[in-house]
Every structure is written in structure tokens, then in C-alpha cells.
């Protein structure tokens, strides 16, 4: 019995960690995903220094996957945790966090500063009910990557791309069109891109009603065409961004729709394939109508229960200053949200495809803005899975399920 008590005491003693640090600059906890290159660490250090003792930014790493990040933050915010000062939110979370009262809207004067020079679509993701709730931090969007040894002239529309790939398959050459069709968020992004490119949107602007119409039918048709052509990768139903990248690097594909990170990766991994790798803007759904690729990225928000809101607002403005944005882009592969940075020679050197990215970002689309977004997304990817089973007939089911998700009715897949 004594041993048991001793062991328990030992455990308690070990558990009691060090005490709070003494008074000094305010510690701002920055909850953000693990950034491998250390760019965020450098930014945090630079900004802490520049604050002249007003604050110290301490990075609190979150899990690698977006879902894990959201879980960790939601759990603590629902418990009114005051240690959450700066939050790195995925672009789709702002309406949810704002509605639940977990983040603080920016004061008018500071909001104006944030808006100046920032990409419009990113600002759209950060706004809810007319107020700016978060500050765009970095962004991302997909391009069409292709093998210029197999495809001399890149396609402009999905129809053309599928036809080219079918032709290649008849010649026995690598012909897959790599796209993310697993039952997850990336599939919703694909669907949203197609709907937006056909001129529509999934949910109304106030996030209350589903608005799928003819544009959705076109989107479903496009998926149907791809999935039933020789161009489709047999594992499309299990593919996320990384799997499609690996397939392209393995030389099995002629086209790939993916984020710019695949470029430096191919350069390092497969020089042979890399020398034939070219890029262009995402294919359109309708000939002549520009495509509206769905945007991704991170917005920075201030926690509603933070004890140091003023310092947090200041820190965020520093973290997204042009120098830091360039560093994030060059070291960390995270495209910037400030338009001015796109003209910076350092940035352009690291991103040969900067023109295509910028064009895409200027006409990008956003995912449905609603506090129930997670449920909506689950219903979309659930109804449309696997891609091989998709057809225009799914429209009715899709509409009713999305509306249920918005109203928080029923179960979520």
C-alpha cells in the first residue's frame, strides 16, 4: 500500500510543472499548425523583438491535419479558455467561430488597415455579418500541372482535358488526370470550384439556404464525365493531395490538379519528370468563361476570451507584414495575401508560376459561408462519393442534405 502511495506521489510531483514566468512582456499564445520550415518561428521572433517589450509571441503547435487543429481549439474555446490569444483559422472556420462567440471582430480602424492591399477573396473568407473577424494570413489555390512532353498545348476546358487524356490512353502513354476524389474536404473543394466556375454557388450569401441549380448540374456532369472516362485514376476514391502528387511523380499521370507545393517536391524527388513538368490555370467548365478556383489558406483571429486583445491585434498586423509574408512564401511554400508581394522579385524568383497563381487568386471563389460549414462539407463529400457513382440525378439528394446540415437537423456522415 505504501508503495502505491509513493508511486502516486511521484507521479503528482512529476506532473507539477514549472510555475508561471515572472512579470515582463505579455505572452501571446499563437495557436497555429506545425510549419516545417521554421518561417513562422522566425516571424514570431521578429515581431516579438519589434514590439519593444510589449509582447512575446509563443507558438503553440496544433496537429498537422486541419480537423485536429479545429478540435483542439474548439474544445478550449468552448471552455472559455483565456490562453488563446492568436488563432490560426482555416478559411472556412470564420463564420462558425464568429457565430459561436469564440473570436473577436476587428475594431473599425484596424479593420481598414487589414483590408488595404489584401486579396479581395481572402477578405471575403474573413468577413461575417458585415464585420471583419479575422485577418488573412496566407492563401493557396490549385493550378493545372501537366507533362509537356505528352501534351504540347495545355487544355482550356475540362472537356478538352478529358479528350486529350483519352487520346493518350489509346496510345498507351501515361494518361491519368489526377484530382482529389476521396471522401474528405478536398473533394468538396473540387465540387465548389466546378459549381462556381459554372456560375453558381452552393449556399446563399447569408448562409441560410442551399442554392444549387443548373450550375450544379454542370458540375455533376463534369465529375461524371471524368469518372467514366479512361482518364480517371482507379484510386480516385481514395486520393487526397499527396496521393495525386505521388502518382504524378511516379510518371503515371499526364495532368494533375494540385497546389503549388508539388513543384519543389518534384524538383527534389524526380528530376526526370520535373524537366517535363509545366503549369497553367485550372481548366474551365464553360468555354470562354473564366474559372473560379476555390481558395484555401489561413486567417488569424483574436480569441474572444484573451486577456491581451490589443497586443494580439498588433501582433497579427506584424505577423502579416510584407517581409514576413515573403519569408512565409519563400521558405514555407505559403502564397501571400498581400497583392504587393506578388510584384516582389524575391517572391517571383521562388515561384516561377506566380503569374498563374495571381490570376487565379484574383478570380477565386470561396466555400459556403455558414456556421454549419463542417456538416455541409461532410454531406457534400458523402453524397458525391465515390466519384464513379456521381450523376446529375444526385442534385435532389444533395440539396436536401445540405439544407438539413445548415439547419443542424439529423445525423452527419
Amino acid at each position, binding site marked *: 500500500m505504501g508503495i*502505491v502511495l509513493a*508511486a502516486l506521489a511521484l507521479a503528482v510531483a512529476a*506532473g*507539477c510543472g514549472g510555475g508561471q514566468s515572472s512579470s515582463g512582456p505579455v505572452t501571446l499564445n499563437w495557436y497555429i*499548425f506545425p510549419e516545417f520550415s521554421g518561417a513562422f518561428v522566425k516571424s514570431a521572433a521578429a515581431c516579438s523583438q519589434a514590439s519593444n517589450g510589449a509582447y512575446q509571441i509563443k507558438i503553440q503547435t496544433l496537429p498537422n491535419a486541419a480537423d485536429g487543429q479545429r478540435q483542439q481549439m474548439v*474544445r478550449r474555446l*468552448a471552455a472559455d479558455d483565456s490562453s488563446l490569444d492568436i488563432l490560426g483559422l482555416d478559411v472556412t472556420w470564420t463564420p462558425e467561430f464568429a457565430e459561436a462567440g469564440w473570436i473577436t471582430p476587428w475594431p473599425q480602424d484596424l479593420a481598414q488597415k487589414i483590408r488595404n492591399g489584401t486579396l479581395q477573396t481572402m477578405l471575403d473568407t474573413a468577413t461575417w455579418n458585415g464585420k471583419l473577424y479575422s485577418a488573412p494570413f496566407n492563401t493557396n489555390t490549385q493550378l493545372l500541372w501537366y507533362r509537356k512532353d505528352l501534351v504540347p498545348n495545355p487544355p482550356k476546358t475540362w472537356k478538352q482535358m478529358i479528350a486529350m487524356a483519352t487520346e493518350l490512353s489509346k496510345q498507351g502513354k501515361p494518361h491519368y488526370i489526377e484530382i482529389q476524389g476521396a471522401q474528405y474536404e478536398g473533394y468538396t473543394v473540387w465540387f465548389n470550384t466546378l459549381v462556381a466556375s459554372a456560375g453558381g454557388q452552393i449556399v446563399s450569401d447569408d448562409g441560410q439556404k442551399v442554392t444549387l441549380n443548373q450550375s450544379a448540374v454542370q458540375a455533376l456532369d463534369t465529375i461524371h464525365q471524368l469518372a467514366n472516362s479512361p482518364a480517371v485514376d482507379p484510386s480516385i476514391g481514395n486520393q487526397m493531395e499527396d496521393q495525386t502528387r505521388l502518382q504524378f*511523380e511516379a510518371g503515371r499521370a499526364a495532368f494533375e490538379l494540385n497546389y503549388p507545393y508539388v513543384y519543389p*517536391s518534384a524538383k527534389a524527388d524526380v528530376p526526370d519528370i520535373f524537366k517535363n513538368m509545366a503549369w497553367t490555370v485550372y481548366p474551365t467548365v464553360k468555354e470562354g468563361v473564366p474559372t473560379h478556383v476555390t481558395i484555401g489558406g489561413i486567417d488569424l483571429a483574436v480569441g474572444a476570451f484573451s486577456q491581451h486583445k490589443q497586443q494580439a491585434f498588433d501582433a497579427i498586423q506584424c505577423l502579416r507584414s510584407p517581409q514576413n509574408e515573403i519569408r512565409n512564401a519563400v521558405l514555407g511554400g505559403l502564397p501571400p495575401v498581400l497583392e504587393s508581394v506578388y510584384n516582389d522579385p524575391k517572391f517571383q524568383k521562388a515561384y516561377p508560376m506566380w503569374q498563374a497563381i495571381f490570376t487565379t487568386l484574383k478570380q477565386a471563389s470561396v466555400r459556403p459561408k455558414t456556421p454549419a460549414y463542417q456538416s455541409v462539407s461532410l454531406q457534400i463529400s458523402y453524397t458525391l462519393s465515390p466519384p464513379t457513382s456521381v450523376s446529375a440525378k444526385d442534385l435532389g439528394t444533395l440539396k436536401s442534405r445540405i439544407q438539413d446540415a445548415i439547419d443542424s437537423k439529423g445525423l452527419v456522415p
Partner: protein
Amino acid sequence: MNATPKQRVSWGAANVVVVLIAAIPVLWLVSLSFKDPSTITDGSFYPHKWTWDNYSGIFDQPLFTHALVNSIAIALISTFLGVALGAMAAYAIARLDFPGKRLLVASALLIAMFPPISLVNPMFNLWRTLGIFDTWVGLIIPYMTFSLPLSIYTLSAFFREIPWELERAAALDGATPIQALRRVIIPLAAPGVFTTAILVFLYCWNDFVFAISLTSTNNARTVPAALAFFTGASQFEQPTGSIAAAAVVITIPVVIVVLLFQRRIVAGLTAGAVKG
């Protein structure tokens, strides 16, 4: 054991088959951990391009080393406490008569059956209030609690099988129930106790739900939770090589622990064979 040569060969072959089936997926992980990232998709079982980068990478940052230490310490302490408490209760259930026995056994099972995912939110709130969130104690307590049913059931099943005569003989010799427990029962219960210890250890070792919900820094994060923080060369890249390397590294302490404990099982077996 007087086995014919033919029997020895067939049992020997069976041994080899069992080891192979257990080992092949593990060898695949080892192979993945040594594969250069550019060859991950080559579909071959053996790496064509070898690299130590995955291993050096996981030790570069404190995340993994701290997680290893946390995992080992928390699992060992939880196992020790859990088996100790479980053994005492199991002895009472198996050998003694008292009111409320059925209720205890049923509630222990109830606790083992309730899905832990719906318990982490209230537990998280409670732990934060008590100040044990993100500490070793914060994980040891749920691990102990939720492994107790398994301990109690397993141990009482083994205690039941120990012949009653031994205890009576000890009582006749003048030993108190507690002395009978220590001198007679425990040596015979060794196989059961160490079996339970291994199972409880591995339960704590493998747990993900509590680890990811009740920790937030390197202070107490264990390996399964730490794997969720591994990052590839970019946001989208899956850190296959790193996870494979980490899996191999964390299997080593398990192998050591098992090797140590399994000798006790053998000792217990030979002791059990000499029963009067």
C-alpha cells in the same frame, strides 16, 4: 518433452510461420522508414534507395523525444498502479465473499464499455479546473481507471483457478489471509499478473483519444498523439517516412518490456507445473 522428430519438425515449422506472419507488416514499416521519399511509390517491399534521414529527422525536434519519455513513464506508472489496485480487488472478488460483489463487477464492466470519446469533453473541463490538464497525472488517472475493469476481470479469472487447498493449508499453518496472499497466491498468480501487466501497459501505450484530448504540449503528450503533429515537407505531404521511423523506434521499448515480462510468465509456468 518427449516429442518425436516428426513432431518437432512440424511444431518448429508452425513456430516459424507464426513469427513470419507477425513480422512481415512490421518489416514493411521498417522498409518504409528507410525509403528515400522519392521512392515511396515504387511499390517494392525493399527500399531501393536507402536513407537515414527519416530517423535523424524525428530526433531533430524535441517533440518526439519528449513524447517517448512521456509515453514510457506514464504507461509504466499507470500499469503498476492499475495492476496493483486491480489485483487487490480481483483477489477479493475471486476468493472472498462479500455483499456488493455483483454490483462491483457490473459497474466495472459499465465503465469499460462507455465510449471514451464522449467522456473527454467533461474530463477536459474537470482537468482544467483541477489544474492537471497537460500533466502526467492527468493521463495516469484515466488510464488507471479505464484499464481497471480489464485488470479485475483477467486477474479474478486466474485467481479462481488457483487451488483452494493451498490457501487452507496456509491458514492451517497459521498464516493470516494477507500472508497467504503474499507467500502462496502471488507466486502462483504470476502468469496472470504479468499477462495483465502487459495488456494494461499496451492499452496505455496505444491510447490516442485521451492523449490527444488531455494534453497540449510536450509536457505530457504521448507518442500516439505526437504522431498527429508530425509534419511532412509541406502542409499536404504525408510524413510517411517519419511516421514509419517513429513506429519502429517506439516498438523497441515495447519489445524490451515484453521480453522482460515474458520470462516471468515462463517462470510462473514452471512453478505452476509443480503443484502438489
